[in-house]
């Protein structure tokens, strides 16, 4: 059984003291332990941004990719070897700005993987610019007079894109987040968790306190996770009360389920040698 010690790496953590990422890091490690996933069985894929350093802090297989491309990279790994548990970590700018074009497609394509977005509603590593989830009016280095457009709603987008597992967590509530991650990894299909992750250095607005005053848990209010319409209604809630928890969880056949020829063996186990193309050559005569 894997332990917290096993998951430790020699890398010194360089996140700011109090960074919301710590809660996500611990929640993920605890989820791995709870699920009994061995280090060799899981792959951590991360993008670029403060979150991207996850790959340095969890001692499991990892691929630290480029900005915005966590999803296709993770999908490629999963398609190659569905026996692996693939968990992608992205930032809000990483996924909702640079990588937005992949998001809806990942939801509808439904390759079995988990995406956890560290959503601090600001660009951290580039020292404080607005992202698509920054609130309207949010003043940053790139928006000194306040963000003009309204914020993007990733949870609602995941729902309308036929995402099969859509959740939101708060890194200030690590145990709740851990449970969400456990459920997401267990889910067969594309599981998405948007995580409120306060940036203690560049987001003066959406602080731990700000979130604590607003978040409430869907499960405490008897939300039916199989009701997509209700889930969407909840996803549109924003203001004094902001829901966290599982909005929607309903499996449908994954992409791989629709590839009957790969039922017996993953691609990694299909021999590379002696592939015969004679029948196709014959058709070309």
């Amino acid at each position, binding site marked *: 059984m894997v332990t917290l010690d096993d998951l430790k790496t020699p890398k010194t953590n360089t996140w700011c003291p109090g960074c919301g990422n710590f809660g996500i890091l611990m929640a993920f490690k605890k989820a791995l332990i709870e699920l009994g996933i061995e280090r*060799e069985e899981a792959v951590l894929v991360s993008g670029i941004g403060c979150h991207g350093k996850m790959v340095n802090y969890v001692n499991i297989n990892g691929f630290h990719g*480029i900005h915005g491309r966590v999803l296709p*990279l993770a999908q*490629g790994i999963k398609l190659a070897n569905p026996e692996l548990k693939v968990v992608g970590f992205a930032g809000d700018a990483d996924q909702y700005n640079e990588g937005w074009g992949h998001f809806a497609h990942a939801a509808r394509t439904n390759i079995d993987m988990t995406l956890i977005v560290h959503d601090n509603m600001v660009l951290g590593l580039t020292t404080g610019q607005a992202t698509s989830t920054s609130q309207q009016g949010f003043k940053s280095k790139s928006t000194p007079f306040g963000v003009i457009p309204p914020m993007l709603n990733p949870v609602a987008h995941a729902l309308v894109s036929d995402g099969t597992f859509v959740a939101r967590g708060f890194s200030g509530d690590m145990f709740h987040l851990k449970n969400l991650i456990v459920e997401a990894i267990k889910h067969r299909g594309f599981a998405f968790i948007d995580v409120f992750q306060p940036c203690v250095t560049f987001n003066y607005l959406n602080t731990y306190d700000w979130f604590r005053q607003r978040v409430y848990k869907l499960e405490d209010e008897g939300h039916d996770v199989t009701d997509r319409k209700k889930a969407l209604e909840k996803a549109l809630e924003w203001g004094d009360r902001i829901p966290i928890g599982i909005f929607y969880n309903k499996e449908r056949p994954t992409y791989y389920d629709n590839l009957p020829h790969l039922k017996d063996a993953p691609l990694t186990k299909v021999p590379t040698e002696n592939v015969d193309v004679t029948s196709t050559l014959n058709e070309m005569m």
Partner: protein
Amino acid sequence: MITNKISLLVGGEAGAGITRSGFLFAKTCLRGGLYVFGANDYQSLIRGGHNFYTVRADREMVYSQADTVDLLLALNKETILFHKDELVSGAGVIYDGDQISITDEELGRGDIKLYPVPLRSIVKELEGPQIMENTVALGAAIALLDYELELLDSVLRDTFSPKTAEQNMEAAKQGYDYTREHYGNSFGYRLKKTVSAGKKRIFLTGNEAIGLGAINAGCKLYAAYPMTPATSILHFLAPLDRQHKMVVIQTENEIAAVNMVAGASYAGVRSMTATSGGGFCLMSEGLGMTGMTETSPVIVLVQRPGPSTGLPTYTAQGDLRFAIHASQGEFPRVVIAPGNVEESFCMTIEAFNLAEKFQIPALIISDKYLAESHGTAEPFDQSRIGIDRGKLITETEYTGEGEYKRHKFTEDGISPRAIPGTKGAIVRTNADEHNELGYTTEDPVLTTKMTDKRFKKLDALNKELENYETVKFYGPAKADATIIGWGSTKGPIREAMKILGKEGITVNYLQIVYLHPFPADKVQRILQSAKKTIVVENNKTSMLSSLIRERLLTTVDHKILKYDGRPFNPEALSQSIKEVL
């Protein structure tokens, strides 16, 4: 009477089945024992416009299309007017005389044989779809050429469903009978079954050959976004994925495609993507990531004229520098340019081997002319090249010394490669600069060391390539001039050599197959003894000349450049060569 030597052109509107008809005629010739080359020319539209397909068949090997046309199958009047000046004296034109009237005045010449055939009324009588007019025309062509209808029938049977084939065979027969009856043996060209009839040669496009090569090389994941002229690789592979246990997936864009193949490669699966220039722009960042993470996908760049959208359905060789230099920073890669269908097959397998062996991205650079033209080849030898996965750890458990290090420093720079899932190995890689374990680093010493490690692989690759056919040489050792080219110009160049040879002019030809790393020694050796050097390229700035200048400090004597979106024609090319001699 000219026997077994024909250049046929079928033309008409888009949507009229032009390419299909040309292909059917080409296959008919193939089965009669001839060598065939088929090239299509179409515009970026679905209906209307002017499309044509040329078929050149000969009892000797044909490497390209011809400059001129002996027999024209015109499915509309525009085709006649468009191609009238390409017709040889005594050429024939098959067209629907009820629908089209054409005069010698309009043709501007009186040496063309007009063969009106009532294509539409024959189809109407048979109650077939209008598109079948071209099958009637094919039957007429077979009759004019005194060829065997059964050869066409056999192709129709293998191409269509039994019912459609039956209908088309009847249409062809009607066209054949009408033409026999009305025109007898009046045409000066003839096709006869040769002793090679029944010899099993294959007829395929460059893209199909790349697809076949990928399958044969054990490619298990193909991810791509449609972009002409690379799309037909996707079309070719998609229906074969079940048979060969592959995943063939159309991604949301090229960025997704390149990242997906990188992920699959990391996970231990041979993977490939293909695109054209615009899509390759989008892939550039991902390409650099594969260099940094030492993952090894194969990326096919099928060129078309640029910049930007350019001429989407035409050909060019303007992306050579782009392929060699794409993406920021410095990292080793291999860039291979096949010149015909056989090379497209073999070099795709080589690309997979080199990519995995040296843990680098491998690029295959082709173009629309090679990718979509059909060429004749002997059935490919599927076991000649073999599979070499390099330092891949295939055991389910890592038993090496100490902790597994994905980017371990080694003598040749190549690290043993475990795949995620291997017991006892944590496989970590990183687009950031990293240490041997794959953890991020910004340390100056380690940065230098890691860069050196990656470039040691280039030394190892160079050594390996000494045993590869990185250049090919054709013609006599001593010649009036040495032609230098890369990629699809091979066909027209070899045809031009034949033409010049008949006129007593000897040229030889250096085909540079591996453009990067550049086979400097081999090129140097050949150029040293060249009397005069002529670079032939489908681009404006002669990137190959600049590459030779850069690598060998040699300036080539002449450049013959064509950048109108069309491939070289052999006659015209031989004229251009004569002009500079």
